């Protein structure tokens, strides 16, 4: 079954730049997909359309049964509750502890305290941060902060986890730790993961399916045990 269906999607920004052109793509439930491509190839734009930060200017994008293109501003939260998002810059709240940062995602959708507590601790355990619940973000390493962000993204048990260069600020060792966490989430929770990245090493090591973009066009979609190939080099 497909969690995401994209039909003839196009994104043209107001300044005239076309970031995505005629994109057709289906992504299966439970899969782990890398999105690669040179700088400006449209990776972030694609991710942004999936969580309806941007709207496609043409075509259809269905995520978990919701047509993102037609989703009204005041209904966007319905989509957001089905997915988790992780960024390169973590986006934690500096005045809240690790626990509070993760709990925040549940409180603002009105979850009960007991339920919140259980789920937050479980998520933090999964990312290996159970011993740091009372720390503040500035008392953590970059890798740890990113793991808090991942815990926050999965705490509501979303069907889909979107990651835009989650390892962009981390050294190779920490990056692989993050990848191990994501892989575990994909396998244990069955969460569909889509991750945009520049990192050749990671893509080669993980052996997941890979989408390559070039100037907003899909140039290849390798389904099985794929590796980082020349497409990106050609795209530059």
């Amino acid at each position, binding site marked *: 079954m497909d969690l995401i269906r994209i039909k003839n999607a196009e994104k043209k920004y107001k300044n005239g730049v076309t970031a995505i052109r005629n994109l057709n793509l289906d992504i299966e439930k439970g899969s782990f997909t890398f999105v690669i491509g040179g700088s400006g190839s449209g990776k972030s734009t694609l991710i942004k359309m999936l969580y309806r930060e941007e709207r496609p200017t043409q075509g259809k994008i269905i995520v978990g049964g919701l047509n993102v293109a037609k989703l009204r*501003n005041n209904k966007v*939260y319905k989509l*957001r509750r089905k997915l988790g998002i992780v960024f390169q810059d973590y986006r934690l*709240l500096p005045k809240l502890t690790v626990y509070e940062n993760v709990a925040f*995602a549940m*409180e*603002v959708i009105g979850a009960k305290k007991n339920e919140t507590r259980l789920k937050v601790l479980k998520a933090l355990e999964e990312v290996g941060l159970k011993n740091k619940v009372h720390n503040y973000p500035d008392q953590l390493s970059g890798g740890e902060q990113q793991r808090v962000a991942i815990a926050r993204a999965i705490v*509501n048990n979303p069907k889909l986890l979107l990651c835009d260069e989650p390892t962009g600020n981390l050294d190779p060792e920490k990056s692989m730790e993050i990848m191990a966490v994501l892989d575990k989430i994909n396998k244990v929770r069955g969460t569909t993961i889509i991750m945009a990245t520049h990192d050749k090493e990671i893509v080669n090591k993980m052996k997941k399916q890979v989408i390559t973009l070039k100037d907003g066009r899909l140039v290849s979609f390798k389904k099985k045990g794929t590796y980082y190939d020349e497409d990106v080099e050609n795209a530059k």
Partner: protein
Amino acid sequence: MKMLRMLNRSIRDSIKSVFRNFSLSLASISCITITLIIVAISMLASFNVQNFTKEIEKDLTIVVFLDSDTSEDRITDLKKEIGNFPNVESYEFESKEDVKQKMQKESEVLNTVLDGWSEEDNPLKPTFKLKVKNVNKIGKTADKIKQIENVSVVKYGEGMVETMISSFATIQKVAYGAVIALVVVTVFLIVNTIKLTIFSRKREISIMRLVGASNFTIKTPFIIEGMILGIFGSIIPIVFTTYGYLAFYNHFNGYLYTHLIKLIRPEPFIYQMSLIILVIGIIVGMIGSSKAVRKYLKV
């Protein structure tokens, strides 16, 4: 249950942010305070004016004298004609005889003089006393009645009452203008206060959006913040109204200068006023914050 939990959270956040942006909050609160004091004074004055103009209006009469040789038939017609005037509420008729008897009662000298007059050579005039529906049109009504045949003299008020009522109306208009101008300034200040809060919490708001908080959840704390500003702003005006009016009323013993102008009794008047002031404060706060939310939150 879920509603309550979220509301609790919103109120906590709002109170925190009122104190976090203290100087701007204080500016908004002061502005609401000044506005509401002026609103309060205008309302106190306006309700009192309304109250005693009603009293005065009750006493206001048009007196219509007919020619003394008006026939009985003609009087019957006139009763109908005058009674059917659109602005005439009711009338009292006094025939020559009635007037004569009245005068005789009033003075011993007149009594003997008038006693000699027979029905025919009684020179007194039959009289209508009219109550009008709308006091503002009393002049016009009197003019029209003057043109009717057999009507000799028409008198009403002394002009003073009219002037008084119309000058009260002018004062009221000025007060309304001042209130509207102040409300506009207040709303502007509240918008800016809330804007600052929104900006200082931009990161938090964007994360709330990402993790799927509904628009309602995102907006509510800011709307509540505006309401809190309104509530804080109405405290001084309420105290002012309650004790101010009480002192004023007691000082003048319930009447202003003459027994014509009777003040409204403080209870329950001051409680009603306080409630109105509080409600206006909250509404102005909400208008300001909703405007800010709509403008800067893009939800």
